[in-house]
């Protein structure tokens, strides 16, 4: 197997690293030099991967423009050769790469915008779960409510933005000119999930963000109401908690609402 193994190693090094050793393994055709023919594979490699990134990060591409996005894509391709069979996952490190690699890291909204696109894509084809409905909640006996625990839909993820990347996303998504990048006075919590077949996101106000984070850890509804009272004041605390809960149910955010949702599911829920 040495021969085939070595040949494939040289061929790959020729594509990824520009190594010319493989040219000695290749014939000229009757019309074309071997360097030109091998160049078809070399050129296609970077073009194809850049196209995958452009597709997966369409709005980041629009925001940066062709030249800057091409710089980002080429730097990423060089740093992260694809290690998965499915091209769907090739670009999964791009947001972290943009956050940590100059000059992109100097503009924090770039990594956050890419992160939002990735989170939406992950929600789009993430795991299925049947959402709990308001009718199902209404059927639960009132005395059980304080003991209710909640499991988020498996696609639901929270992220914290230091910039107005969410506003930039919304403008670009509408085909409008994006606002200039700004650092927010306080980090903003963004919740991303899939409702039926549509990936969505919305910013959470601090109180709802707190309640969602605690609910996702498995904290029971009675305690959640006390936490809301402590966080935002006792007046109307239960009503505020119930309103958040209704919103979650109306938008397909919960996969289980019960005094005894399975512990194994709660482990999944704590990640959200």
């Amino acid at each position, binding site marked *: *197997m040495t*021969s*085939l*193994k070595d*040949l*494939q*190693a040289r*061929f*790959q090094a020729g*594509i*990824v690293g520009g190594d010319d050793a493989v040219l*000695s*393994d*290749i*014939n000229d*055709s*009757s*019309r*074309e030099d*071997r360097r*030109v*023919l*091998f160049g*078809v*594979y070399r050129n*296609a*490699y970077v073009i*194809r*991967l850049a196209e*995958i990134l452009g597709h997966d990060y369409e709005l980041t591409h629009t925001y940066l423009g062709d030249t800057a996005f091409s710089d980002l894509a080429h730097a990423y391709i060089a740093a992260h*050769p*694809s*290690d*998965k*069979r*499915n*091209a*769907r996952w*090739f670009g999964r490190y791009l947001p972290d790469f943009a956050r940590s690699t100059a000059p992109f890291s100097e503009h924090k909204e770039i990594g956050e915008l890419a992160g939002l696109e990735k989170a939406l894509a992950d*929600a*789009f*084809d*993430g*795991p*299925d779960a049947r959402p709990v409905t308001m009718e199902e909640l209404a059927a639960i006996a009132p005395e059980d409510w304080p003991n209710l625990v909640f499991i988020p839909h498996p*696609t639901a993820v929270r992220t914290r933005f230091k910039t107005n990347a969410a506003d930039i996303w919304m403008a670009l998504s509408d085909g409008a000119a994006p606002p200039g990048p700004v650092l927010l006075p306080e980090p903003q919590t963004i919740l991303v999930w*899939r409702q039926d*077949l549509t990936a969505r996101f919305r910013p959470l106000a601090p109180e709802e963000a707190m309640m969602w984070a605690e609910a996702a850890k498995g904290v029971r509804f009675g305690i959640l109401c006390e936490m809301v009272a402590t966080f935002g004041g006792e007046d109307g605390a239960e009503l505020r908690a119930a309103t958040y809960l209704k919103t979650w149910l109306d938008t397909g955010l919960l996969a289980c609402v019960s005094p005894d949702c399975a512990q194994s599911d709660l482990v999944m829920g704590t990640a959200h």
Partner: protein
Amino acid sequence: MDFAVTDHRPPYLGFGLGLRPQHYEDILSGNPDIDWFEVISENYMVPGGKPLRILDRICERYPIVMHGVSLSIASTAPLDMDYLTELKRLADRVDPKWISDHLCWTGVHGVNLHDLLPVPYTAEALDHVIERVRRVQDFLGRRLTLENVSSYVTFAESEMSEWDFVSEVAERADCWLLFDVNNVYVSSYNHGFSVSEFLHGVPRHRVVQFHLAGHSHEGEHIVDTHDHPVCGEVWDFYRETVSHFGPVSTMIERDDNIPPLAELVAELDVARRIAREVKSGRTMAAAG
């Protein structure tokens, strides 16, 4: 392994298209004249959501064939068991008429280049591919269907023709073949062989599917881009191919510059017409 369940030749499906997201709505809301769909396996090897929901609905209405792009059967890297497990899971959901991929490799050393890379036609590569096809078939519990790829280079160490290599793989690994009409044309131009020689060099009883596609002519070589309609030369070769093989499930691949569905259905009608003309020509010849 004895493939008792799928021992027989896969059914003739007629004329199909590659399923692309741009056409989901037209397919589900209309009743396009398409006999079957080929799906890119990797596009549906995801946890859930819309792609799989749509695929389930298409499966209820049309026969489906799964076509992969990253099996990397000729790679010297170990078989990717995670990939194969996911592929099998999708096959259990879809119940495809057959599962195909390419006679090529896509990377080594833990890297995937997302391209269909050429194989040297040597006895060593032959033994390697055959052994891997057998293992994959054992794992999947069904025969694979392997497609000849377009290639842009030939290797100094090759010891046989592409069609001899393809034929040996099919016979010794006991798998089916997907005869890509456009790929034979592209490679014949790039490497200067005769399409007819390839056509007549492949075992007829192994071929269960045809691919048709467009390409980009760069003057001194042709690149298999799937972004144009099928060209006249490839239609001529398709006519010769149908004459030689008889009725074989045929589909058109379009992966870039994807036109409205109606345009592809019209292109598929050209394939139907050619197959009809070949058939009636044969009937007339038999009657005469």
